[in-house]
């Protein structure tokens, strides 16, 4: 089995494992962020470039370093490969650059976005973004589109990760949406007003790393951090029926698939489970959900101690970051009206 060293930590992984997956096996801070890669979707990854890493030693056979930064989600490991992620200033700078590129046309409407709190771009921005934008031009604008009666498309927030296109390709019976146009006016669209209502299409909402595709049955009902996640299941002939219910009080506000600590779903769920079964009596409740990743959601009502500790350390980290970056909050870009 090839042995790979990432930021000084070694691991033996099966042949054909990508650098990103090897890093996930090691775990911790050295896992590169991934905005477009999704382990459960074939051929995903390689587009967003946030997971770029430096290969400082190609392999035992050919120790030459790779000339360019490589996307860790697509590059498979070789025996003896040495990878630098957070230990390489070049990688960190490149990642900051990519984050900036992803944000220059993003509306930064987190205060009214349903994805806020579980948005990967938000996390990426906090971790690698700058406090002040250097982009002074008008941001890209699109009309909001209803694709079907269950999903809303906010193209302004989209980062073109192609995940939803791959969901339609690989899970649904046919795909009637895709990317049209090119360059920075490329957009996810059904081309001629069409409806995305194939069974399993609801999974697009779950795979969307940003708030571009949102659940219309949940829109504006609540901030996610005010809801309580509970794992539940039911017998479903279309999917595994294993879901996560998000409660506010007695009411189930939304149903999603269960996600792991990298924000990837564990089992796909069908549209019927997601949109049509929103009563506690529809479900067999299992346990309060365990939210693994650093997020405001992990400060839920059950795991206060550990979650609060994490949150506290996060806040301290950002306060330190703020002080170092010289910009006070008030004049920065945290407020989109300042743009």
């Amino acid at each position, binding site marked *: 089995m090839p042995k790979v060293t990432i930021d000084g930590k070694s691991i033996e992984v099966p042949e054909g494992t990508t650098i990103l997956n090897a890093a996930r096996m090691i775990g911790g801070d050295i896992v590169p962020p991934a905005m477009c890669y999704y382990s459960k979707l074939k051929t995903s990854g390689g587009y967003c*470039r946030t997971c770029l890493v430096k290969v400082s030693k190609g392999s035992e056979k050919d120790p030459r370093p790779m000339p360019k*930064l490589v996307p860790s989600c697509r590059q498979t490991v070789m025996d003896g490969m040495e990878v630098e992620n957070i230990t390489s200033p070049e990688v960190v700078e490149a990642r900051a650059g990519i984050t900036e590129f992803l944000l220059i046309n993003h509306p930064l409407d987190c205060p009214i976005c349903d994805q806020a709190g579980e948005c990967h771009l938000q996390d990426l921005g906090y971790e690698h973004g700058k406090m002040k934008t*250097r982009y002074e031009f008008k941001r890209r604008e699109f009309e909001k589109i209803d694709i079907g009666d269950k999903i809303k498309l906010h193209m302004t927030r989209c*980062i*073109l990760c192609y995940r939803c296109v791959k969901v339609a390709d690989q899970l649904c019976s046919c795909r009637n949406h*895709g990317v049209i146009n090119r*360059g920075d006016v490329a957009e996810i669209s059904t081309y001629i007003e069409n409806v995305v209502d194939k069974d399993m299409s609801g999974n697009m909402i779950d795979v969307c790393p940003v708030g571009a595709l949102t659940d219309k049955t949940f829109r504006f009902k609540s901030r996610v951090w005010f809801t309580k996640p509970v794992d539940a299941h039911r017998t479903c002939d279309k999917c595994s029926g294993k879901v996560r219910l998000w409660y506010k009080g007695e009411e189930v506000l939304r149903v999603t698939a269960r996600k792991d600590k990298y924000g990837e779903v564990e089992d796909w769920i069908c549209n019927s489970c997601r949109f049509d079964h929103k009563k506690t009596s529809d479900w067999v409740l299992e346990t309060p959900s365990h939210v693994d990743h650093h997020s405001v959601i992990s400060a839920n009502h059950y795991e206060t101690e550990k979650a609060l500790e994490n949150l506290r350390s996060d806040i301290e980290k950002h306060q330190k970051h703020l002080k170092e970056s010289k910009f006070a909050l008030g004049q920065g870009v945290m407020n989109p009206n300042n743009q």
Partner: protein
Amino acid sequence: MSKQILINDLDKAGIDTLAGYKAHGGYTAIEKALKMKPEEIVEEVKKSGIRGRGGAGFPMGMKWSFIAKPPGVPRYLVCNADESEPGTFKDRYLMEKKPHILIEGMIISSFALGANTSYVYIRGEMMYVFHILEKAIQEAYDAGYLGKNILGSGYDLDLHVHCGAGAYICGEETGLIESLEGKRGNPRIKPPFPAVVGLYGCPTVVNNVESLANVAWIVNNSGDEYAKIGIGKSTGTKLISASGHINKPGVYEIELGVPVEEFIYSDDYCGGIRNGKKLKAVVAGGSSVPILPAELILKTAKGEPRLMSYESLSEGGFQTGTMLGSGGFIVMDEDTSIVKNLWNFTRFYHHESCGQCSPCREGTGWMEKILHKFLEGRATMADIDLLWDIQGKIEGKTICPLGEAAAWPVAAAIRHFRSEFEEYVKKGKYMTDVKHYYRINKLQEA
């Protein structure tokens, strides 16, 4: 005049027809090639040292030898005729005037690679060339050079012309393959390379028109003879599309190694700068290669005369050198505004970015908008550094070379002509025709 092997007989009547081409020595190489073993042809091409004429300059024989040969899997040869680099117009000229030289080259190359179906992917805007090729291919079918059992050798080949929809990105080989398969022309992530997984998942070689057109000559005269033309590792001749402020713009075939100074000022080639003006800068290989100021294009940093060859042009790296690229030789006289020229290039790359990966999708548009600010006289000194920073964050971070192609011209212009950017900031020049461009194209101004 130096040696010419591609466009030496364009003045002959009927050279664009099969009969005329044959009368002047065409289609002799096929008979010779079909008697050779495919490996021998690959060996000849390797010996010739010919480098890909599409821009990257990768040795063609080496590319051919990389092709995977799993049993029972078809192999494909695709000719890249999606010539869209601003400043390059050599393939179009060659295909228009002498379509059979490409067809002959493709038949031999397909035989050498073991391909039974080959494609010419031609850019959508060149519809008239598409018709010329279609006609020429029909002639070749009628004469028995294409189809089943070519010249009784037992080798079958079908040649198709496929018309793209006019996208620069489809000139990138994997983008081209995707487009040929009928999908959106997004470049693929490499590896795997097309030599292993290419068209329809099969091993594929993608070659430029000019590269393939040379194959017939190499087979007829041997690779060693070809290697004698040119200089050092830059063997053979090269079609140069000369444009800009020169007296005689057009397509020239040069033997690699001609001094740049001779190429610009000799009456055999460009014939000097128009209206007796002074030379300011040259983009030596199509819009994506770094621009060089007059003193660096005529002489290298070491003071040696610069030659039209792969090595000489790239001497000094990007600090003081450039690339031969696809041979789009754009000459600019002293009145040219580098900033405006750069804006035009950047606008092109912004428009042609496929939008797949974030640095190129967002960065190219951002650079265009900043350069537009310069032309409007609203830029500040900090914008020069910002531009420099953005290009650095695009270069080398993208899936395909379009990112580099967009970043290099910006980097080179700032590196060599920073003072001109500063002048724009200080004087606040305003270009009305820029506004006009946006208006007629119904675009939103930045």
